[in-house]
């Protein structure tokens, strides 16, 4: 309140007044002061409202304002009282004012959005709540103006965000949807036309299962019931739908649950992607892979059979050979062929056709080599300790040939006469990922000075070259009892060619 002077009521000399009049005057003064206090309080309240308040007459002249109006527009109260609505509202013309005044007078109240111009020329969007009042013979418009700049900004941001969302939803090739807690579509993006041929309006109110063949609907509704009961997300759920034209379309569905304010499941929102083409390509690829697998298996099988035929041809040839040395050469050659044939046999029995298990392969091979020398089990015993290690054909074949040569050498030379003994073979995977093969026998042993690197025999030359050059490994020989070959290498050695 600016006017802080108390209104003084001029009274005649109290002593000159009769007692009763003096009492009346005292009461009148008390009422006046009380009314003045109420008026000050009201004015204070009005001045400190968050809304600007304008009182205007029928000619749009501003007749009073509150403090907020002054601070919002940057004028002093005196300046504003010399202005009209047209000075502060760039949108209001006289015609518009006349119409608005008539409407206000008719309705008593009205709300509108307009703009106010500040003293420094800024434009502020405002919401006006106008009230008509007739007071003391004057007609007034008491208008509350609220600055809605922030509200407008929030609205524009929301509108922009909605627009962005809508353009994303409508430009993506995926179909965006929303279902309620009962699985009924409540929103369907226009892309459904491209995917299933329906308009969004045709699908809203339906469930996803209405768009599927009966069997598929039963399968998927079971899955969806389980997912929604646990309020889980739907992740890449493949499902078959029927296009409006009757053909089948494979969709991949993903979605997340959403909840109401009480935390109850309100529905799911998600996307569907047409993966029909992808599924067809996948099926063709799978068929092609199956066909290649069949061919590869057949190839291994025939290779093994052809090697068996070569071995049989050698058997036929051997019938007419009497020379012991020649017979020995044929038998060694046959064993080498069988070693390689067994790799192919194990490969066509393997699951992935490119790797085989060393335990199976070396176990069968070692027993076959022992059998080929027709030595009874009570004379030479074989101890195998081979881990299950998966290796490629490029590792298995040299491993097999090395074992064949080392075992053959032992069986030929380490147990002369009726000497009994044992051969031991272990193959283990080292902690560093390498493979360690250890072959030993407790036969008569090799001379301490034996230099296997310069040995002239084909068998040991093969062992050395296969270990060091083919497997890129190392080989050590211990000639103290028992005789032991230790070969270390790593797998894989090089790019696969199968």
């Amino acid at each position: 309140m600016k006017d802080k002077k108390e209104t003084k009521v001029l009274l005649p000399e109290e002593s000159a007044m009769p007692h009763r009049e003096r009492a009346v005057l005292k009461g009148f003064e008390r009422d006046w002061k009380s009314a003045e206090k109420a008026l000050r309080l009201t004015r204070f309240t009005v001045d400190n409202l968050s809304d600007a308040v304008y009182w205007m007459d029928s000619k749009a002249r501003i007749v009073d304002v509150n403090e907020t109006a002054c601070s919002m527009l940057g004028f002093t109260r005196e300046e504003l009282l010399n202005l009209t609505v047209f000075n502060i509202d760039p949108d209001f013309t006289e015609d518009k004012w006349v119409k608005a005044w008539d409407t206000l007078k008719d309705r008593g109240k009205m709300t509108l959005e307009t703009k106010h111009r500040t003293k420094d020329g800024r434009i502020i969007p405002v919401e006006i709540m106008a009230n008509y009042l007739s007071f003391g013979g004057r007609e007034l418009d008491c208008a509350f103006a609220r600055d809605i700049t922030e509200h407008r900004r929030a609205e524009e941001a929301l509108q922009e965000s909605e627009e962005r969302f809508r353009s994303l939803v409508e430009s993506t090739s995926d179909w965006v949807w929303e279902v309620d807690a009962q699985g009924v579509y409540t929103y369907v993006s226009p892309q459904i036309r491209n995917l299933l041929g329906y308009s969004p309006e045709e699908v809203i109110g339906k469930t996803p299962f209405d768009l599927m063949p009966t069997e598929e609907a039963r399968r998927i509704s079971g899955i969806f019931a389980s997912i929604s009961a646990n309020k889980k997300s739907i992740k890449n759920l493949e499902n078959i739908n029927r296009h409006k034209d009757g053909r089948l379309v494979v969709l991949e569905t993903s979605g997340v649950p959403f909840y109401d304010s009480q935390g109850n499941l309100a529905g799911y929102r998600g996307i569907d992607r047409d993966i029909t083409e992808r599924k067809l390509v996948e099926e063709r690829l799978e068929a092609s892979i199956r066909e290649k697998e069949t061919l590869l298996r057949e190839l291994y099988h025939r290779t093994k059979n052809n090697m068996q035929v070569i071995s049989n041809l050698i058997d036929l040839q051997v019938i007419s050979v009497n020379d012991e040395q020649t017979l020995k050469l044929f038998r060694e050659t046959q064993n080498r062929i069988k070693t390689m044939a067994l790799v192919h046999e194990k490969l066509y029995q393997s699951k992935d056709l490119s790797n085989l298990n060393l335990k199976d392969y070396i176990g069968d091979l070692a027993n076959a080599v022992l059998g080929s020398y027709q030595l009874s089990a009570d004379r030479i015993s074989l101890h195998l300790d081979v881990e299950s290690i998966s290796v490629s054909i490029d590792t298995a074949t040299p491993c097999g040939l090395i074992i064949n040569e080392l075992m053959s050498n032992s069986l030929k030379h380490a147990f002369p006469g009726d000497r009994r003994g044992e051969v031991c073979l272990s193959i283990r995977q080292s902690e560093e990922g390498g493979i360690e093969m250890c072959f030993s026998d407790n036969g008569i042993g090799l001379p301490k000075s034996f230099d296997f690197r310069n040995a002239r025999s084909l068998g040991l030359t093969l062992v050395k070259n296969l270990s060091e050059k083919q497997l890129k490994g190392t080989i050590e020989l211990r000639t103290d009892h028992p005789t032991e070959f230790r070969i270390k290498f790593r797998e894989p050695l090089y790019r696969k060619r199968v």
Partner: protein
Amino acid sequence: MIVEDEIIEAMFLGKILELWGYEVCEITTSGEDAVHEAEVERPDAVIMDIYIHGKISGIEAADKIRFKVGIPIIFMTGYSDEETKQKACAAHAAGYFVKPLNYNRLKEALTSIVPQDS
């Protein structure tokens, strides 16, 4: 020098070359080893398989050997496709043989590069 990742094939070829009177200074199974050994051993010729162990192919190894020490290369391969043949020609090979090898023609090619009395 022989570069061949099937060591038994390499050993057999080595025996044949020795029978023809050549000395096989080294047998290697990878392209990287071949480049290294060619620099160390400086052989008169290299008989090189195209698809071999290691990170580089026989053709890449041959390029490096030709660039570093200028040794003639004879290629041998189990793959008779046109692309492999063109790659071998582009590598200025002194010979190109598809396996199984025709040893008479290999001998002729080798003799034209390295006469047996050298």
